[in-house]
């Protein structure tokens, strides 16, 4: 069954703050095999002009994924999670994400489109501080396989 088009433009606020921990940044960097000192060594990060460890470029997905699951889990959206694959991902930074940042996420259903037999759900998410300062905007395309409405 097709994804509910009424959801285009809908916004979900994920208000539970996520605190970016130093050890989480180190764990994530270690998991991707990256020993860049700015992910591991606070002195090195400070020497490079930063206030704390930097989160790797794709780290915000750890945060936006949780918010996205919440939005996609809305039963009225009618998305079958067993049929989805990750189609596309983008991170656009307004400023670096640092260890110590406490952030919230809003998720906007930007588009629902049909390509062949598949549907593409595009979600735009904003990771921001509790004061509303935007840190990073992410775009996520989820492909729902074989769920496009069929003609005739």
């Amino acid at each position, binding site marked *: 069954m097709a994804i509910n088009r009424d959801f285009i433009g809908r916004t979900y606020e994920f208000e539970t703050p996520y605190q970016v921990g130093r050890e989480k940044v180190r764990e994530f960097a270690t998991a991707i095999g990256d020993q860049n000192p700015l992910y591991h060594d606070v002195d090195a990060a400070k*020497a490079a002009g930063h206030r704390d460890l930097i989160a790797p470029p794709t780290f915000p997905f750890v945060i936006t994924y949780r918010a996205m699951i919440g939005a996609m889990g809305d039963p009225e959206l009618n998305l079958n999670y067993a049929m989805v694959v990750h189609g596309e991902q983008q*991170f656009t930074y307004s400023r670096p994400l640092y260890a110590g940042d406490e952030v919230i996420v809003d998720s906007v259903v930007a588009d629902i489109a049909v390509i062949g037999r598949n549907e593409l759900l595009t979600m735009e998410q904003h990771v921001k501080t509790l004061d509303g300062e935007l840190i990073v905007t992410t775009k996520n395309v989820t492909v729902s396989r074989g769920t496009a409405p069929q003609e005739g």
Partner: protein
Amino acid sequence: MAAAVSVPSFDSVNVGDKIGPTTFPIQRINLIMYCGASGDFNVIHWNERIATAVGLPNVIAHGMFTMAQAARVLTDFVGDPSRVIDYGVRFTKPVPVPDDDTGTAVEVTGTVSEKRDDGTIVVDLNATANGVDVLGKARGIIRLRD
């Protein structure tokens, strides 16, 4: 005393410059670690029985893991990862990771495709596993000049 990070100068970079190729080996242990670090415990990334039952050739790497590996070509080049201000990819093919002592590998090459007046460069990334392109429209924007 921490070593200073060396950022390449904008003037030293030319359109057409290649970065890499760099080869990133991937074994099952790396996917298990990424499950824990990212919180994405989808069974297709660690359970071969279920992965093959849903039609996959084997356990597959998280798309986000492959994306993170490809990003290292950008961050290793610039030194300071916060200078990668924009990064996007399409996931075009899964990366199967066999349960043996070698696993698989993703090979990533960057090409400088554009220099912009605002002091940024655009780097297009090509990523392959077993000779197959696994990312499409993979592109990073790096700020070299403040």
